[in-house]
């Protein structure tokens, strides 16, 4: 990157997106080994891995612009520097209805975000978004299946309550017109969004755990 080149305006969006995917991938992976049944354990762990893979690709894109590397962006920043939305920070392990509610809201919002990025003038970003969308389509299908399943089960109320509670934070994943699109897709009215201005108390402990090994031997090549 030449010294004169201004930072790409979408860099902030890319970093926020990468942070969302990393933190949600981490949260979803907390179900590994304890998901409701074995097949779902494999599927949900695979989705968690998918999100972290997307985070890596986005960090690599941002790192090339910023003259750093993906690991530094993922693990060497302080919790306050992360741009992730509060929705992905919540520790929902042991609450499957809540986890599926977030999964469904997140993947639906993600569809809106990715569709916009595919149209980006930044060719590498547009290409990456198109590639990610192929996997995200599977994530959306999985989330939709589960949402329908819980809605037609005895867990219906728990699921709907969780969607209701998470809705302001889900809206906070997006900005502007993309919020209207999300409202349409999930059939909900707009409310005051819980955006990226502040982190929840749950990010700190997650960050501690997530960066523990890397901090234990600074600068090591693993």
């Amino acid at each position, binding site marked *: 990157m030449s010294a004169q080149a201004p930072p790409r305006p979408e860099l902030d969006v890319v970093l926020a997106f990468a942070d969302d995917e990393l933190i949600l991938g981490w949260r979803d992976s907390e179900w590994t080994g304890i998901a409701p*049944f074995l097949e779902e354990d*494999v599927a949900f762990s695979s989705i968690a891995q998918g999100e972290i893979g997307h985070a890596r690709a986005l960090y690599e894109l941002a790192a090339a612009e910023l003259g750093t590397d993906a690991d530094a962006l993922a693990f060497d920043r302080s919790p306050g520097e992360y741009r992730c939305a509060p929705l992905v920070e919540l520790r929902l392990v042991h609450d499957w209805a809540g986890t599926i509610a977030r999964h469904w809201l997140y993947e639906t919002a993600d569809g809106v975000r990715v569709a916009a990025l595919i149209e980006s003038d930044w060719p590498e970003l547009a290409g990456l978004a198109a590639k990610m969308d192929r996997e995200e389509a*599977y994530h959306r299908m999985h989330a939709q299946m589960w949402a329908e399943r819980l809605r037609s089960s005895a867990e219906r109320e728990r699921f709907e309550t969780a969607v209701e509670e998470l809705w302001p934070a889900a809206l906070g994943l997006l900005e502007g017109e993309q919020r209207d699109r999300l409202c349409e897709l999930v059939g909900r009215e707009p409310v005051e969004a819980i955006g990226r201005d502040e982190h929840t108390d749950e990010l700190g402990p997650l960050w501690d755990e997530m960066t523990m090994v890397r901090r234990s031997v600074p600068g090591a090549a693993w």
Partner: protein
Amino acid sequence: MIWEVFRQEREGQPFQHGGSIEAPNREFAEAYAIELYGRRAESVALWIVPRDEVREVQEPYVADVFDRDYRRVDGYSLKARLKEARERAGAAPA
């Protein structure tokens, strides 16, 4: 609900039983079949079948009761005949 999964490793090859999965309906079964039997590109195609729809053939699925070894290749001893044929060929004028 249990589903049996059959996988094809390469195009043109026969489908072989891969294993079984538990899934509440067809949509979940398809997703889980992909996760467990196709995620690492180890299959080019998958079939899923509800276990209840698989019929195990019962009687008279038994081994031969009477000696009908002429129905099988191993019922014929070729060794002696091959030897004879070789000798005859060897003895024939070049």
